[in-house]
């Protein structure tokens, strides 16, 4: 039976070699600028490829990667979380306060748990506000970030003693950032595991499918029987959890929290920039974790390169902007081409 509506066998255009036609130009977009810069830096600066330098870059980006990977899910599900930066600082302060107030290994354990949990709770609140209360996620999470930053300052009043900030120079805690199993720092390992898990969740699980469907067409997803609100809330919760984890990890590295709202804003923006440079749509329904990873590392690599190549700071901003435009422009161009 099945008289199926045909698809092309006849098409005349075979001039492009076959293997080229099968490259997914769409997906490859960010890879090309990434590799281009990577190769340019490897040639331009002998220090670039050194294990020390690569390790440094990855270690520093570990928190960012964790947050960005989870935020990618939020965006794909059609949300937007501008509060990740604030949550990151908040959880660090919570964690630090616990460690300072309770003390000892117990305090460290409690601090880590409290920090991560605080992130999760903030994420759930974000999700509930922007789904059930129907407040636009942009404004909901912006307002939440004011609230969280305020709460951060209040908690830290409580956690610090005398002049200055919360300091957690506890060996049992800073250990988290200093251990290097197999020569690679623990934060990198954690980031690796988180990124891989989130990537696979998105790629291969039913939940991942629901995330894409929710962001791609929420009404269709709902009528297909997907609990759209629950999916969205879960992505916000994941982002909060990730921010909590990142806050704790970076606290272990620092190991104290600078209280400066602009740090939160910068983190949020860098995360967003990395995701979008990676090629995930802010309109939802499209994107991937590995793209985000490349996007974040692309930007980090540029900054690293600027330092290694001794680019005058006055020109760095300009260079960064131009390179991002080129990279994203290449992406746009390759999408057109793939038509």
């Amino acid at each position, binding site marked *: 039976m099945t008289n199926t509506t045909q698809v092309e066998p006849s098409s005349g255009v075979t001039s492009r070699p076959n293997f080229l036609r099968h490259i997914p130009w769409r997906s490859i977009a960010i890879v090309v600028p990434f590799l281009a810069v990577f190769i340019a830096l490897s040639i331009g*600066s002998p*220090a670039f490829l*050194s294990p*020390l*330098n690569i390790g*440094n870059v990855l270690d*520093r980006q570990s928190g960012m990667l964790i947050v960005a990977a989870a935020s990618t899910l939020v965006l794909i599900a059609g949300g937007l979380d501008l509060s990740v930066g604030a949550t990151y600082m908040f959880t660090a302060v919570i964690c630090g306060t616990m460690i300072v107030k309770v003390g000892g290994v117990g305090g460290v354990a409690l601090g880590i748990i409290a920090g991560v949990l605080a992130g999760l709770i903030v994420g759930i609140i974000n999700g509930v506000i922007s789904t059930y209360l129907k407040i636009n996620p942009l404004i909901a999470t912006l307002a939440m970030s004011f609230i969280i930053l305020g709460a951060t*300052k209040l908690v*830290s009043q409580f956690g610090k003693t005398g*002049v*200055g*900030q919360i*300091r957690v*120079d506890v060996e049992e805690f800073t250990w988290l950032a200093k251990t290097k199993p197999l020569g690679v720092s623990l934060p990198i390992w954690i980031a690796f595991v988180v990124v891989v898990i989130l990537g696979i969740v998105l790629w291969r699980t039913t939940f991942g499918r629901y995330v894409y469907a929710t962001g791609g067409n929420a009404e269709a997803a709902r009528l297909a029987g997907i609990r759209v609100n629950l999916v969205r809330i879960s992505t916000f919760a994941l982002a909060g959890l990730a921010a909590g984890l990142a806050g704790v990890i*970076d606290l272990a*590295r*620092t*190991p*104290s929290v*600078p*209280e*400066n709202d*602009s*740090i939160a804003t*910068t983190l949020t923006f860098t995360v967003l920039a990395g995701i979008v440079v990676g090629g995930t749509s802010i309109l939802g329904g499209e994107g991937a974790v590995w793209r985000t990873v490349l996007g974040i590392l692309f930007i980090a690599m540029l*900054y*690293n390169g600027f*330092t*290694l190549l*001794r680019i*005058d*700071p*006055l020109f*760095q901003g300009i260079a960064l902007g131009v390179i991002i435009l080129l990279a994203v422009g290449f992406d746009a161009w390759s999408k057109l081409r793939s038509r």
Partner: protein
Amino acid sequence: STPAPSDSAAPADAPLEVAYISFAVANTYDEPMLAAAQKVADDNNVNLTVFDGNLDPATQASLIQDAVASGQYDGIITQPIYGPSILDVVNQAIGAGITVVNIDQILGSDFTTGKSQVDGLSANVVFVPSELGTKFGEQTVAACASKNLDPCNVAYLHDVKASAIGVALWDGFTAATKGSPVKVVAEGETFYNPAAAQTAVSDILTAHPEVNLIATSDQGLQGAILAIDAAGTPVSNFLLVGYGGSEWGQGKVADGTVFADVLQAPATEGKLGMEAMVDALRNGKNHGDVDPFKDFPNNGVMTKETAGQFTGEWAG
């Protein structure tokens, strides 16, 4: 080139590579510091490479790591945005044999001392926020006394209230004004921005017409004067006390607009820091803790009488 170990001095004629990790490149306070350091570097055959921390401690940490990883530098000058954030990487740098000199801001977690908090640091040329706050408080008390005000209603504008420096300064200020007629009736924040300060002061004056004295940084005072002007009140109705010691501040103290201004000396710090760096690299000599204010008159406080002895080291 491999970094020169700090104990073996480099020959006097060989060019040296020094990285300068700035607080923020485009910043009126930081620029003269950099310019002064640059001048000393030029005079001593030192090649200075500047990196922009851009107000972000994490960026500074990255920059230091990158500088160490590049293996290109004999020395690093740090001007921390938030000391504790870069302690670790500074230790890495010292561990890698790089000579490190810290200037302007505290490198460490104790904001009440100018003593070095890092082993192996070649020199530490900083102002101490709590001391600045103490002097600031003392001048405020003096200003109130000059008009016999009791109580003396003060509007205090933090730069960034929750910042480490902000807290240290405030603590110094409150300790110094304790038991005096000084009574803080309003607080605000300037974010080092005259426009923001103007907003804050406008609102404060509306809500608290009883304010006699405004205490804040030089940038904050600029905004305060704009706000007072806009309100149509003579500036002379208010006592103004500042810190920063900028060119602007010096002028305003000299003409009596501002009662007193506590000095900060970015250019001196930059100069002393770079000199210490050169000395360490060329002669293997560590300068240790350097007080940048030791050569200034009147303990580094500008008043109408002493203003003539100062020149502002930055714009304000």
